[in-house]
């Protein structure tokens, strides 16, 4: 009963001022909503990729592949007849071209047909939307059906092969991932599925297979080892089927980005709560003093405030979490569309909601610890004597200035912690920046707002710390977002440089048959081609992380004189070492995923069986975004057991473009060419998502400024309510309501302007530090994101104006008579 009473009293206390309660609650709601949405989006993204990876893997345990394009079905008789094998799926891949009536290029019409012996196999998971898997017709993804305007029962023709009817249309699945428009088709082939027999009929590749997938019973591991032994010196090899799509997506790294923003929003919310609770405690000092004089303990007073904070946080969580779920859904839709993933998803909300509620309740409490403690420590005598206990001393400002300036030294230290130190420095130095901005803008305010402008400038110094903190929060928000947007804007250039430096040529052409010397000579005879280099890529190759988890990537053969596939600066020594013993270089993402240290050994399932290789170094490469490895060509051919090259890297003569050459190559090598990719294609596909990302960043910039503006509204409201008597006096002395409004708007404008100016300066400092950082090895250049600065300025100033308008309305409505009584 007593406890219930405490909650009721707390409720009455926090709702005493409706507007202040509403604004503070809004701040908490938005903070929790951001955090919830990010947690949900992260979990859901993981689920989505896991779902599609599992769909790709299906029930298969192992597969037999070849380092040539195809192999004879006879080679795998031991698999097909093994008692350990419970189910098999035979597959043949063949590159072909749609026969269409439109004017699409050969490149755009390129399609990879996978022939399978059983479309209903449990080793395949095909999410059918329409039709049935009858093993007689074609299975096509919905995006292809839409683009070709085909339905179940319609016929699709393939150049030089034949025609077949569509028997099923399926949803997105990795196995049949296809472009959804003709522009995308320039960079990526379509993929469809046909019955194996039909494809063999069309191609004449009787008895040929690209791979066999199979499921095993508990004898599987034994069979795997015996097959590794059996295939040791052949052109086929066995690998476990592993769900690992990291080579084709790097979406996980993106979430560091968004968690940073969610953390920032929670920080701003925390500050809003701190402001509200601190002001409330200061206002009620007398009440606490009276409570203590009647025998209440320090603990009881602190508990009262704690309950108020928890109540506020719980209400915030109750409203913020559902909004966060909705935001998370919106975010997922935007994210998948930005990355052009035609995927379906189910929101994973249970754990994220639980986490968000815990964070949502804990954070406000943590931010309110000081006022909670302060309330308990209220001095009865001093408070009842109305002594001013809150006045900030000069020594505190000096301490703040010295500490702030000291932390700025971190700008010269190349370490991730420096960013936090710089942000802390900005917050500490903000009172001085606010005073500077105040001095500069005072004449301008006076010009536009008359005497109200002068008063606004003077009033700002009255609660300097609070006003400065409010501005600083806005500044930190703007600085971080500007840094992120500058990184996003600058990244395409960084990626482009990295791709051009490590792509190995101007075009990469992939064939279904190993390239011969005659092919090489024929290519060199083209006027446009300056150089031709074979590229050996062993794929898919499975390996183990340091924790024994199975992963899958590609291994490129490298040669000192061959094409440059990774950043070789300062790597010459390790490159030389590659040639000595069978060893390996890992791309950055692969190295992080592996989890070991340079000098340790990585276990890899090679075509010659499971082997361990020393990891010599980590290298930067654009190939598969760094989820890749490199091995000396000689060792890859011999100890590793991979002999053939299906790719050629072409370097063009000056004045020629890959686009011009592409169609010619398709015509000349149409019987075995499977892919022609230019370096521009690779740059475009890598950077196009970043352009979409920039739009997301802009939305977040406005949202963060909006949240910070709620903080401004909150602070101004506190300032207004604390100065009720003063505002009553100036109204009594003849200031009109309009003049009072202008005064408060002027204060808000100064806080907003200081925040925006401080944010832009801080953002530039952070960006400069980032551009100079060796950690990023010059990936980010110092480019001023002018567009985003203008947006920050407009959004910052206009939202601050809106925020101050809310308080100005309250100020102008203050009753002169009752406020004079308070004084």
């Amino acid at each position, binding site marked *: 009963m007593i406890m219930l009473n405490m909650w009721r009293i707390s409720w009455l206390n926090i709702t005493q001022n409706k507007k202040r309660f509403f604004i503070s609650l809004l701040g908490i709601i938005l903070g929790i909503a951001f955090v919830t949405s990010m947690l949900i989006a992260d979990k859901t993204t993981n689920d989505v990729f896991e779902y599609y990876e599992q769909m790709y893997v299906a029930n298969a345990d192992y597969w037999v592949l070849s380092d040539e394009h195809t192999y004879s079905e006879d080679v795998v008789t031991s698999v097909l007849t093994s008692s350990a094998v419970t189910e098999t799926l035979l597959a043949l891949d063949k590159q072909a071209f749609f026969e269409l009536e439109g004017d699409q290029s050969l490149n755009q019409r390129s399609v990879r047909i996978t022939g399978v012996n059983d479309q209903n196999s449990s080793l395949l998971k095909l999410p059918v939307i329409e039709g049935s898997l009858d093993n007689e017709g074609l299975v096509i993804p919905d995006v292809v059906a839409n683009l070709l305007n085909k339905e179940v029962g319609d016929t699709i023709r393939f150049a030089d092969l034949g025609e077949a009817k569509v028997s099923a249309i399926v949803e997105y699945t990795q196995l049949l991932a296809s472009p959804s428009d003709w522009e995308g088709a320039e960079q990526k082939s379509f993929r469809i599925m046909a019955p194996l027999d039909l494809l063999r009929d069309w191609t004449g590749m009787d008895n040929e297979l690209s791979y066999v997938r199979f499921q095993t019973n508990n004898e599987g591991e034994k069979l795997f080892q015996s097959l590794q032994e059996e295939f040791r010196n052949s052109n086929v090899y066995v690998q476990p089927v592993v769900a690992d799509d990291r080579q084709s997506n790097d979406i996980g790294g993106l979430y560091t980005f968004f968690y940073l923003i969610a953390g920032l929003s929670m920080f701003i919310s925390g500050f809003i709560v701190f402001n509200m609770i601190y002001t409330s405690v200061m206002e009620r000092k007398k009440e606490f003093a009276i409570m203590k004089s009647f025998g209440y303990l320090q603990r009881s007073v602190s508990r009262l405030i704690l309950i108020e904070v928890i109540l506020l946080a719980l209400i915030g969580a109750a409203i913020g979490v559902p909004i966060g779920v909705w935001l998370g859904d919106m975010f997922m839709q935007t994210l998948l569309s930005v990355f052009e993933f035609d995927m379906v998803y189910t929101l994973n909300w249970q754990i994220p909601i639980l986490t968000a509620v815990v964070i949502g309740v804990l954070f406000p409490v943590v931010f309110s610890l000081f006022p909670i403690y302060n309330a308990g420590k209220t001095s009865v005598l001093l408070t009842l004597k109305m002594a001013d206990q809150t006045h900030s001393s000069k020594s505190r400002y000096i301490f703040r200035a010295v500490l702030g300036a000291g932390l700025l030294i971190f700008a010269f230290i190349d370490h991730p912690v420096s960013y936090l130190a710089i942000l802390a420095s900005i917050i500490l130095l903000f009172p001085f920046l606010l005073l500077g901005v105040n001095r500069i803008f005072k004449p301008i305010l006076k010009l536009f707002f*008359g*005497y109200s402008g*002068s*008063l606004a400038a*003077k*009033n700002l*110094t*009255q609660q300097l710390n609070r006003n400065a903190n409010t501005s600083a929060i806005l500044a930190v928000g703007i600085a971080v977002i500007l840094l992120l947007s500058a990184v996003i804007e600058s990244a395409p250039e960084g990626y482009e440089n990295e791709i051009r430096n490590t792509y190995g040529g101007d075009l990469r052409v992939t064939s279904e048959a190993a390239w011969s010397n005659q092919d090489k000579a024929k290519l060199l005879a083209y006027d446009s081609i300056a150089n031709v280099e074979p590229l050996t890529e062993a794929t898919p190759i499975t390996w183990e992380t340091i924790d024994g988890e199975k992963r899958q990537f590609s291994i490129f053969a490298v040669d000192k004189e061959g094409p440059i596939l990774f950043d070789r600066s300062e790597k010459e020594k390790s490159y030389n070492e590659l040639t000595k013993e069978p060893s390996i270089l890992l791309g950055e993402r692969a190295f992080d995923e592996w989890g070991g240290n340079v000098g340790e050994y990585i276990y890899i399932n090679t075509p010659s069986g499971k082997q361990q290789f020393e990891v010599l170094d980590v290298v930067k490469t654009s190939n598969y975004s760094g989820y890749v490895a490199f091995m000396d060509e000689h060792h890859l051919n011999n100890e590793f057991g991979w002999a053939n090259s299906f790719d050629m890297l072409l370097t063009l003569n000056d004045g020629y473009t890959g686009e011009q050459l592409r169609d010619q190559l398709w015509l000349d090598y149409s019987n075995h060419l499977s892919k022609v990719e230019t370096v521009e294609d690779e740059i475009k596909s890598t950077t196009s998502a970043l352009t979409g990302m920039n739009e997301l960043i802009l939305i977040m910039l406005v949202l963060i400024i909006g949240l910070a503006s709620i903080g401004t509204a909150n602070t101004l409201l506190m300032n207004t309510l604390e100065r009720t*008597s*003063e505002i*009553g*006096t*100036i*109204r*009594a*002395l*003849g*200031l*009109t*309501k*309009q*003049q009072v409004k202008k005064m408060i708007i002027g204060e808000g404008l100064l806080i907003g302007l200081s925040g925006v100016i401080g944010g832009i300066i801080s953002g530039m400092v952070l960006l400069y530090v980032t551009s100079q950082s060796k950690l990023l090895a010059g990936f980010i250049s110092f480019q001023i994101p002018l567009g985003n600065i203008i947006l920050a300025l407009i959004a910052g100033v206009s939202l601050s104006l809106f925020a101050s308008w809310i308080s100005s309305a309250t100020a102008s409505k203050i009753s*002169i*008579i009752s406020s*004079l009584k308070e*004084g």
Partner: protein
Amino acid sequence: MIKVKNLKKAFIQGQARTQVLKGVDLQVEEGEFVAIMGPSGSGKSTLLQLLGGLDIPTEGDILINQNNLSEMTEKERTIFRRKYIGFIFQNYQLLPTLNVEENIAFPLHADGSLTMEKHRFILELLDSVGLKELGRKRANLLSGGQQQRVAIARALVNTPSVLLADEPTGNLDRNKAEEILGLISRFNRENNQTIIMVTHDIFAAGFADRIILFKDGVIDQVISRKDDDYAKYVANFMA
């Protein structure tokens, strides 16, 4: 001249209606110094607030120099107040962010009428209230008596025809109070300003020409200071 006709004021809070002024008729001549006394809740402060245009009457008219406050809009009343009325409050109500000079100049700033001439006048006022040396000092750093002198200078800066004082000496000791009341009556004499002062203090009321005794929202008695036994009469009334 101030004319108050059948002035009524009621406050409504929820369902409850409190009739504070129940029909006040009053005339104060130009240059007259009037003290209003009465027990708490008698309506004297409400009358002062209505005279200053801080609030509007429920019924009746207030004419100051033939301007009817009851017929003015909120904005017109504010502008009228800053031009023609000076206020002195019990708690001084100085603005803490402004220095003494800025506090005094406030009504002129609000009006946009601060000139060099007016600035010289501010300095004269400062001198006349004995604070010549303290013009640049923050107002909240002064003593109570000094703050009230600043408040008086502020009330006089726009040379108002009417000066309204609400318990101007309520927070001061007898010596300081005498000093302040002396200043107020000096300005009354020198500038022929009409002064209406609400007070509980018979000593303060003794500086006025007339004493109006309020009771239950109506004027109960009007006494001239010239009456020999006014002090005794007032004391009895207040008791």
